[in-house]
Every structure is written in structure tokens, then in C-alpha cells.
């Protein structure tokens, strides 16, 4: 299996999804060789982890996320500057070397960064290739622009060559068909899930003392947690929140995260005249991250395009119901969420106000979403994958 990150050295949902999927697959008897682009200690026993790069994980961590670092620090301390395509190429070379010794029946690759390596592995071994799509370039960069043509080419090429494509949601499947003209019959949807036991329990008083105090004075809190980037649709949330504040002045919006839209969003809040009601916290980990969910009366994920989206599930786990955009994969999994088109700011405001005005709505929404949440398991996803492996393995043998 070819991946780009695993917890605890992950920047987002991809690492978590890979980890949970492999864990569930291994429990069903799958033997997994997992290739990563960095060297690190993992406390993982259910599969074998290979480092494809001589890159030290501390450099990855320092850069914040593995995706936008040009600085490449080797284990020896040597520094080079390599862009992300270059890193992908190094990964490909390393995979060539690793497959000489490893025994496997199926190649399973996660997202475009591993795709060149995956295609190369298929070319060298003739083994069936499953490309697992957690997001495509147009999700990340916006449909109007379509993103980086080099990335698009890699995505397109590898999906054409793949024996099977897995999409994490119907939303993503549709995007793949739309952007790359891949036949829908070649794409299976295997929804991501959530390991409810992985949620770190809340402890002690909430980290947001100011918000705790304001809530005692009758304020309500809406939270948004995630990267401040175009994909997340946050300007629309601010526009909607102006209408919320106009009707329920005791409303606060907590925005947790960092990203290239940071200043733009601060500026927009000021232009809209709601600066006093919007609180930016920057990037948070640990308690600051968890407590943002639990202090909120409503969690909002207004993404323009969200292949899956784990944050609403975390929110439900921390006791807060969610309003999510229809353009998200998680909307296919949790029914008891409020749903809105990402562009419909009036409807967003309408639904936010409704929840802020009614504890009955908030509590009923949360009670029902929690019972859906508690039924989530990676087992079903692993079962689907296992069947796919078996099918393609037999098919490959028959050829």
C-alpha cells in the first residue's frame, strides 16, 4: 500500500483514513506493506512500514504539513530544496527498489502523490492496481481553476491505468467522472468512517475561558474548524454570519485554523462589520482543538467541495451538532445533520439562527446524530476493500 502520511505525523484526514483502513484490513487477515515518504518511528504492529525517503520526520513536522514544503532535510541533516513533484519522483524511485523484495498481490495507492510510483509498480510487476481517491485536484483548487495541470495529468493517467478506482464518497466519484471522464462503472465508493474510540476525551475546564464567560451571559457559539483555504468556503460562512448577528446579536463565531485565507477572512469580517463577533484562534492542536468543538452550540463545515470531511464527526463526538455543505461526502453518511448548499448564504444563516434560537432543535439534532455516529465502523469499508482485493487478485491470476 502506498501512502503519504500516517498518524501521528499526519496533516489531515488522509493519514487517519489510511491508518484506520489498514488496521481494519489487518484484523481481517490482510498482510500490508505500507510505504511512506519519510522515516519515523511508528507504534504500529499490524503492518510493515517502509520508508521510501531518507527524509527525517522532524522536518516534515516542522514544515507543518508534508504537502507544501520545499525544504527537504535528510536523516543526515543535509538540506535540499525539492518541490512536491520532485518528492513524488523520489518516492517513485524508492518504490521501484522496495517492490523488488516485497511480496504482494495487489497495489493499493492513496491519492496523486503516490500515483506515479503505483503505476510504475504495476508496470514492473503486472499486479492489479487500485487507486484510492481521497481528493482530486479540483476539490483542492476549486472547480473554476481546476488546479495544477501537472497534478491533473498524474491523476488522469493513473486512474486510466488503474484496474479499479475507489472514491471516498459519491461526491468524489461524481467529481472524478466530471473532471477526468472516467466511466462511473470503474469507480467504487467506499465511504470513510470514524473510529469513535480514537476521540480523546475532554478534560478539565474548557480552554476557551472568554467564550465560557460569554455563554454564561447568554451568548451562543458557532464554530468552524479547518484550514483557512478556498476549498473550505469560509467567506460564505462570514457572509451568512452577518445575517445571524443582525437577528441574534449574542452570537459568536469561532474560527479555528490557519491557511492562506487568514488575512482575507479577518478583513472580510471587518468589512461586514462583525469583527466583534468573530474570533480567530489560528492553528490549534490538542485541548485547544478539542475544546473548540465542545464549547460550540453548532459546528459548521461550509466547504465548497469536501471529498469526505471528518470534522463534523469529531464535532458530534464532542457533543455538538453540525451544519454541513451538501457538497461533502460526509453528508452521505450522517443524515441527522443540517445541510445546505455551500453558496446559499441566506439558507446557511436561516439554519444557524434556527439552532441558536432553539435548544430543542440543537439537542434533538445532536441526540440523533450521535446514535448514527456510534454506529460508525471501519469494518464495512474494510470488507468492501477485502472483496475487491480478492476479486482483482483472481482476475489477475486468470489473465
Amino acid at each position, binding site marked *: 500500500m502506498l501512502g503519504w502520511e500516517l498518524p501521528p505525523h499526519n496533516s489531515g484526514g488522509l493519514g487517519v483514513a489510511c491508518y484506520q483502513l489498514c488496521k481494519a484490513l489487518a484484523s481481517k487477515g490482510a498482510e500490508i506493506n505500507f510505504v511512506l515518504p519519510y522515516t519515523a518511528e511508528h507504534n504500529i504492529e499490524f503492518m510493515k512500514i517502509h520508508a521510501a525517503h531518507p527524509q527525517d520526520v522532524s522536518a516534515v513536522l516542522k514544515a507543518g504539513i508534508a504537502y507544501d514544503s520545499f525544504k527537504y532535510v535528510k536523516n543526515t541533516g543535509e538540506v535540499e530544496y525539492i518541490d512536491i513533484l520532485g518528492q513524488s519522483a523520489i518516492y517513485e524511485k524508492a518504490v521501484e527498489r522496495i517492490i523488488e523484495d516485497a511480496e504482494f498481490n495487489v497495489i493499493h495507492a492513496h491519492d496523486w502523490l503516490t500515483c506515479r510510483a503505483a503505476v510504475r509498480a504495476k508496470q514492473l510487476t503486472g499486479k492489479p492496481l487500485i487507486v484510492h481517491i481521497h481528493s482530486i485536484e479540483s476539490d483542492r483548487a476549486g472547480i473554476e481553476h481546476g488546479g495544477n495541470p501537472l497534478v491533473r495529468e498524474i491523476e488522469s493517467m493513473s486512474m486510466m491505468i488503474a484496474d479499479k478506482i475507489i472514491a471516498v464518497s459519491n461526491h468524489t466519484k461524481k467529481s472524478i467522472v466530471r473532471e477526468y471522464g472516467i466511466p462511473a462503472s470503474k469507480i467504487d465508493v467506499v465511504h470513510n468512517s470514524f473510529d469513535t474510540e480514537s476521540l480523546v476525551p475532554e478534560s478539565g475546564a474548557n480552554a476557551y475561558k472568554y467564550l465560557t464567560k460569554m455563554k454564561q451571559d447568554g451568548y451562543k457559539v458557532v464554530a468552524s474548524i479547518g484550514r483557512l483555504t478556498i476549498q473550505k468556503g469560509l467567506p460564505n460562512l462570514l457572509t451568512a454570519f452577518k445575517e445571524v448577528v443582525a437577528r441574534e446579536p449574542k452570537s459568536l463565531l469561532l474560527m479555528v485554523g490557519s491557511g492562506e485565507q487568514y488575512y482575507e477572512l479577518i478583513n472580510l469580517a471587518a468589512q461586514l462589520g462583525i469583527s466583534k463577533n468573530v474570533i480567530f484562534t489560528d492553528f490549534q492542536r490538542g485541548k485547544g482543538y478539542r475544546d473548540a468543538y465542545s464549547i460550540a452550540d453548532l459546528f459548521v463545515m461550509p466547504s465548497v467541495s469536501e471529498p469526505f470531511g471528518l470534522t463534523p464527526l469529531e464535532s458530534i463526538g464532542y457533543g455538538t451538532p453540525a451544519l454541513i455543505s451538501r457538497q461533502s461526502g460526509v453528508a452521505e453518511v450522517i443524515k*441527522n445533520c443540517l445541510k445546505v448548499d455551500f453558496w446559499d448564504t441566506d439558507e446557511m444563516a436561516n439554519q444557524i439562527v434556527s439552532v441558536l434560537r432553539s435548544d430543542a432543535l440543537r439537542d434533538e439534532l445532536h441526540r440523533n446524530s450521535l446514535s*448514527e455516529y456510534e454506529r460508525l465502523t471501519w469494518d464495512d469499508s474494510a470488507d468492501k476493500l477485502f472483496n475487491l482485493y480478492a476479486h482483482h487478485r483472481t482476475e489477475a491470476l486468470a489473465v
Partner: protein
Amino acid sequence: MSQQKSIVLYLHVHQPYRIRHYTIFDAGSKHDYFGADYDDRRSNEQIAHKVAAKSYIPTNQKLLELLHRHPEFKLSLSITGTVLEQLQQWAPGALKSFQELVQTGRVEIVGETYHHSLAFFYSQAEFEMQVQMHREKVQELFGVTPQVFRNTELSYNNDLAYWADRAGYKAILAEGWDPVLGWRSPNFVYRPTYTNNIRLLMKNYKLSDDIAFRFSNREWSEWPLTADKFTHWLSQSGDATNFNLFMDYETFGEHQWDDSGIFDFLEHMPAKWLENPEHTFMTVSEAADAYQPVDQVDVPHTTTWADTERDLSAWLGNPMQQQAIEALYELQTPIIKSGDFALIEDWRRLQTSDHFYYMCTKWFNDGDIHAYFSPYESPYEAYTNFMNAWHDLRLRAGAQ
């Protein structure tokens, strides 16, 4: 002479005024809660047209033929004020076809609340007002006065029976629910506890649901249900006087589509039943007159004809539903005092039980979308629309 056995067929006709997509941007400025665009799925006008064409007109035509063909054929209808108004406005042909049925003298109209509300459980004064409004509407359109009462969703308890007895009704309708009946059969006339004159007719839900719910279900072991088979079952139930087949009128053509064969069933069932001279049909008040009560029935807790629980939980089971309905009745005094008829009527239309049914989360949660009969995407959307309208209503009422 041995008593004739009768089928007591009773059909309930109702359409609510559905609330359009009504947002916080509308509250305080627009008061047209029920005015969805025609192509919107919440358009009352569009639904009135559709249900008239698919259900009311063809079914009434069939019923009228049956009434002409079989002098013994009879039935009872309850028609809410909200559907009568909508038919007057948008489907006068369908209204006329109901009037023609009643003109035969063999179709009885049952009394109820005008707005199909749960007012009995929240405001006695409002409840009585709506029953009176319905009585006047029925007199105006059909020239008859209801003698038998049914409350919204067939909700029933001892208090309601006591009220209906004092109000002079001959009979009252209720669900023939096993925990209430115990070993007893619904196929007899009963007397409610604590009453003197009124009779209790209880729905035979097994036979009624065979038609209303299971008729087109191919998984059902008795599918297909023919008139032969159905009347044979009835003939086989030895000890019985009256088979109370109570169901939604929209069973015919709307819940069970034409292609299920439901109209053929309706066409042939009376002839099959009447083949035996000891068999007949009765309206609800005829059954109350014809048969002596065999026992009294005590119903301290409210029953309805809905769901496996047969209680009010589909309407009042979750906190959203409870808060919404309580908020609505809190406005009673300022709204009635305002003397503003448009305001009062909007308030009453919001009392229609369907609005609270749309907020029910129990099926939504189980993923059984098919059982979830609602023009809204989710119970939360239904609640938000309702409460936005309520906020506007409160502003209009000048209430604090």
C-alpha cells in the same frame, strides 16, 4: 331473526396547508406562510390538483357507481375543513363529487376539528371552536350535521369520550388497539367508560391495514388481495356484528396506486360481500343504532391510529415537537384577542397536526424514508420553517 353483519367503511379525507420554505428573512416582513410556488413540492395548490386527479375524482366516481348499483352499500367520510377549503379554491370538481356522494343519503359525514388539530390536548376552548367551525362548514357544503365524532389521528381517551357524550354525539371512533381491548374483538359496538349514551366504534386495524398498507406489498404472504379472499376472511370470523374498516381516503389512488389494482378491489368487494343476504353495509351512526354495546371500554391513556406505538409520539414525541406546539398555544390569548381574522386563521392552520408529524425523527433516524411522508428534506427543516413562521406570528400578535 339473526342480526345482519355489516361492513362499516369509514374514510378520512385530509390535506394540511403545508408551510413553504419560510426563512428568517421572511419573518417580520412576509406573512404568506402557506404560499409556496406552484412547482415547489410544498405547493398546496399543486398537491390539491394532483390528489384530486389521482384519488378524489376517480374514487368518488367509483363510489358513486357502487352506491347506484348496490342499495345496501354505504360508507362514512370525515373531511377536514382545511381540505374542503382547498378543494373549494383549487379543485371544485372534486368537491362536487363529494357532495354528490352525500346527496345519495347513504354517505355520512363524521365530525372533527376543522383544522385537524391536537387542540383537545392543549386548549378546550379552541378545540370546541374548531369542532363548531367544522360543523358549520359541513352544514354549508353538504347540508348535514355530523352525528358521530372522531378526533385528529383517531386520538382517543376517556376524557374525549366524556366530552363527546355531553356534546350529544351518537358515537365516537377509536383505534381497536389490543392493549385496550384485551381479549375482546373490535368487531362489536362498545360503550366508553364514564358515559351514558354514546357508542364506541373501534377500528379493526388488521383488516383495515390489509387494504390501506399491505395491499400492494408483494412481499406480503397474502398478496394479491382479492375481493373474494377479503370477504371470505370476514365471512369466516364467526362471532361479530360490525367490521370497522377505517382508513385514510387517500389509500385509493394516492397511497395505493391505480396499477396496484386497488380500484378493482373497491369495485368488486361490495358485490362479493353482499352475495350473502345476512351481510350489509352501515354508516357509523347506523352501526351505533343497530347494535347494542357488548361491554364498556376504559381508555385512560391516549391512543391513536399511528405507528406500532398507537400513541401521540409521532406528533409530540420529541422536544422539538413539544416546544413548537407549546409555543403555538402560548399565543392563543393575544391572537384571539387581536380580533384579526387573518392572524387567527394563520394560527389555526399552524395547529394542523401534520406540521408536527413532519418534525418526527423516529423514522428518519431508522433510515426508513418511505415511512417518512413529508414535503421537507428533514424533520429539522420542518421545525425551522415552522418556528420561523411562529416568530412572525408572535410579532403580528404583539406578544412578548
